[in-house]
């Protein structure tokens, strides 16, 4: 069983290593929220491959629901304020 798991582990580790810099290099906050969600999914895959289903589920709900929620709320606010400023300025 271990022999079949090693390539899987290598692939998921690689995906995580690839995903983390992608999150950092994405500058637009809205896109960053999406990329971060995808990065979360790669971490979920890693936890599943390492046989930690409970941690995987926690990661799934935190990176998929709880965290984007806070970011999107903050983005909605800042964009709304930008628009308000434009309106007030014109």
């Amino acid at each position: 069983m271990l022999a079949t798991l090693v390539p899987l582990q290598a692939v998921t580790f690689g995906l995580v290593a690839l995903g983390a810099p992608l999150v950092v290099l994405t500058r637009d906050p809205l896109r960053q929220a999406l990329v971060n969600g995808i990065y979360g999914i790669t971490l979920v895959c890693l936890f599943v491959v390492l046989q930690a289903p409970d941690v995987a589920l926690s990661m799934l709900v935190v990176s998929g629901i709880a965290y984007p929620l806070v970011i999107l709320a903050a983005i909605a606010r800042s964009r709304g304020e930008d628009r308000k400023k434009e309106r007030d300025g014109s």
Partner: protein
Amino acid sequence: MSRRVRIGILTPTLLALGALFAWAIAGLPAFGDYRGPYGLVLNRVVVPLRHTTNVVMGTTFDVRGVDTMGEEFILYAAVVGVTLLLRDEVRSRQAERRTQRLRSDAVRLLGIVMIGGGLLVGLWLVSFGYITPGGGFQGGVLLAGAVLLLYVVGNHRDYGPLRRQHALDPLEALGAGGYVVIGLAALASGTAFLTNLFGHGKAGTLLSGGSIPILNWASGIAVSVAMLLLFAEFLETYVVPLEPEDSGS
């Protein structure tokens, strides 16, 4: 500070940090090497003693039940803090009128399907948490997420009844307080706080684990209502500067 000076400071710092990091990594145990005795003990002990086939839940709600109570109250304190800082009755009424409708029917249909699926999976995760992977936290967040989708696909008015904080507040208290009440019940019956009082039942069924299912549901309710409360507070704080509903059409 010029760019050159900043790079001059950054380079040696980065090199020093990198060296320390490499040194720390080199001293780590090999990949997959497990040295914690507790995990091995729990793996052998939890299923025979507590009849919960998910050892993680047996650990979080029984073996270290007090720690889980602390974690639950961290979330509770966070929600109380956000509520105290952000709750504003006037804005709550304004937010009702100022939400844009989702224009794409396809996205709305997908959202409605996902509400049903999310509720179902959330309920399954909470109720079967101590049998299969899952539990109150994961299921609770998913349940809240499914309810929040109602806000995304509908409009503020459809979602209205689910963000009445005066209805959510007692539920949150029920979830957070229920955990403590179970612990105190054990204390009242003459044993230690949070001792597993009820019969352990048949392993692998919903009627197993004694007080673990009740604690699990208490934390599930506490977590999902906490998420809804947080979202409700964020919503009324953040949504106000947006355009009035259907302004673009």
